[in-house]
């Protein structure tokens, strides 16, 4: 999997790259619009992370160029503005997703794997680990071909952990991923513990091996 990170803030780009490498993605960087255009025209990528505000141009122009060149890369726009206009304009220009700064790396990981799964869709859009299988279209989870009845939140939680497999996902990132803006209400992670407990219990009862590890004090990790 090849990913292009177009981001002028080098430290952020570096963090993104290190995080994605742990998922064995191959990352390339572009710090300016010029560099980005050169790379886009020369190579094929599975996903492009595109910062809209670049020192030598607007990221939306790069998006426009991609469409003109008939490239089929999945594009996630990254913006510090969190403005609706940018979001709508970006999505209209063919971006696949929108990520507002400051984002959790695990949220970025989840969005990237969602896009790649969609782009690589080959009839059976499923994820499998050992005896655990998730059908992404039907949103059905099975263990050893037996259906596991998960609530929507539990399903989202499982998918989020799997998208960031082998990396620690913080409670904070999970809270924001599951409740969106509603995470504003409390700095309280009790509801995550409850969902997590139920999820682990259901998977365990279905006979799945315990892949979700609790990382004490920090969060959770799906080991595969």
């Amino acid at each position, binding site marked *: 999997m090849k990913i292009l990170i177009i981001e002028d803030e080098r430290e952020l780009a570096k963090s993104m790259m290190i995080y994605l490498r742990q998922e064995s993605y191959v990352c390339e960087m572009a710090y300016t619009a010029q560099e980005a255009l050169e790379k886009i025209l020369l190579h094929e990528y599975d996903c492009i992370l595109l910062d809209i505000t670049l020192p030598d141009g607007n990221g939306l122009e790069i998006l426009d160029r991609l469409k003109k060149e008939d490239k089929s890369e999945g594009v996630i726009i990254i913006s510090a503005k969190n403005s609706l206009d940018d979001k709508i304009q970006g999505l209209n220009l063919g971006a696949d997703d929108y990520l507002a700064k*400051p984002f959790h*790396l695990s949220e970025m990981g989840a969005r990237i794997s969602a896009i790649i799964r969609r782009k690589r869709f080959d009839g059976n859009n499923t994820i499998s680990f050992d005896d655990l299988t998730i059908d992404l279209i039907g949103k059905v989870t099975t263990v050893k071909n037996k259906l596991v009845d998960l609530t929507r939140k539990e399903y989202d939680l499982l998918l989020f952990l799997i998208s960031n497999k082998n990396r620690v996902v913080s409670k904070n990132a999970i809270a924001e991923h599951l409740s969106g803006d509603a995470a504003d209400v409390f700095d309280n992670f009790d509801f995550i513990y409850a969902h997590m407990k139920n999820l682990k219990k259901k998977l365990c009862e279905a006979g799945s091996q315990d892949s979700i590890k609790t990382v004490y004090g920090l969060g959770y990790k799906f080991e595969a």
Partner: protein
Amino acid sequence: MRLLRRTVRNFIVYAALLLFVCTPLYYLAIQQLFVEEMEEELLHHKENFEKIVPKITTENDLHLYESINEEFRLKEATRWPIADSIFTIELYDSLEQEVIPFRVLRTGITLQNRNYEVIISESVVGSQDLIKAIVAIQASLLFLLLLGFILINRNLSKVIWKPFYTILEKLKQYQIDKDLSISLPKSNITEFEDLRIAIEQLLIKNREAYVSQKEFTENASHELQTPLAVFRSKLELLMQSENITSEQAELISDLLTATDRIARLNKNLLLLSKIENNQFPSKQKLLISKAVEKTIELYQGTISERKIKVSLSVDNEGVVAANPTLLEILLSNLISNSLKYSPEHSEVSISIDNKSLHLINPGEPFKNPEKIFQRFNRESRVVQGHGLGLAIVKEICDAEGFEIVYSFNSAHSFQVQF
């Protein structure tokens, strides 16, 4: 008190004083003049008589003179000598047939070895009437003069002060967040022209300060997003390290939570300045109940966790024209706030009637209810919040033309009139 009335009032007080003090003084002065004049006349009569005295030889001549000169009375002196004296007495006037005051000169003369007392009198009535008439005319002239002065002054003032009142009216209507500029009427009176120029310059400077302050908040929030993203990403990478001790884990976790709070605060500051800068102009027709149901659904986790009962009643539902994003934020801030401040196992009631939304939730009364819509006014440090939720609600209401009223009557009540 209006400026015009104030100046006119001073004139009126001055005029009244002048009228009341000067009229009697004037009267007395005129009267004094008349009295002096009359005394001169009486002395003149006496001189005339004294000139004639040598020609009078008999008592008959004397009585003839007395009968010719009406003002002249003569009688034998009861005492002698008689010094000249002038005084006023009341006498019966046969002509007028009433007792009237007379000014009298008493003197004595000796005729053919007989002593006589001579009384020369002059009626005061005629002169008094004259004095009164003069004073009355004078007083009414003074009155008319002052009245005219006041009226002219008032009208003139109205005309002269017109630019001032126009400026005042325009300033009252001026809203720094809405009006880009203000055009004030020019005046050919130097002071008002100076005032106009000073005000226009002041407004321009204020507007600039206001705009740059707004831009500052927005820019500062924007600029903070990237370093915040760097910071958060480094923490997440640190989290991936092997062999983290539990102390280190706790530190990282606390840092992450603090980062979340900064991120949220920054997001809300950005939102506030965007609402202020009218960056949510598009409007759609929306059903309030739908939006409310969506918001309740969003907080279902919190609701079930805190065991709060949310009752929603819809009556005679109205459609609202608003920006969907803003309406969503408005409802979510109000509802999340009520969930935050309600005790567990309590009930939050939301009712929608025509074009109003009424939200009631139990809880302790606010310490400063008049400040709840101000930024960073947090009622309780126990409940975590960023102190911007209700400020955003108010800002949205202002931007969309809604009216929000808070009251406390054994429970918190927020009423929004769309």
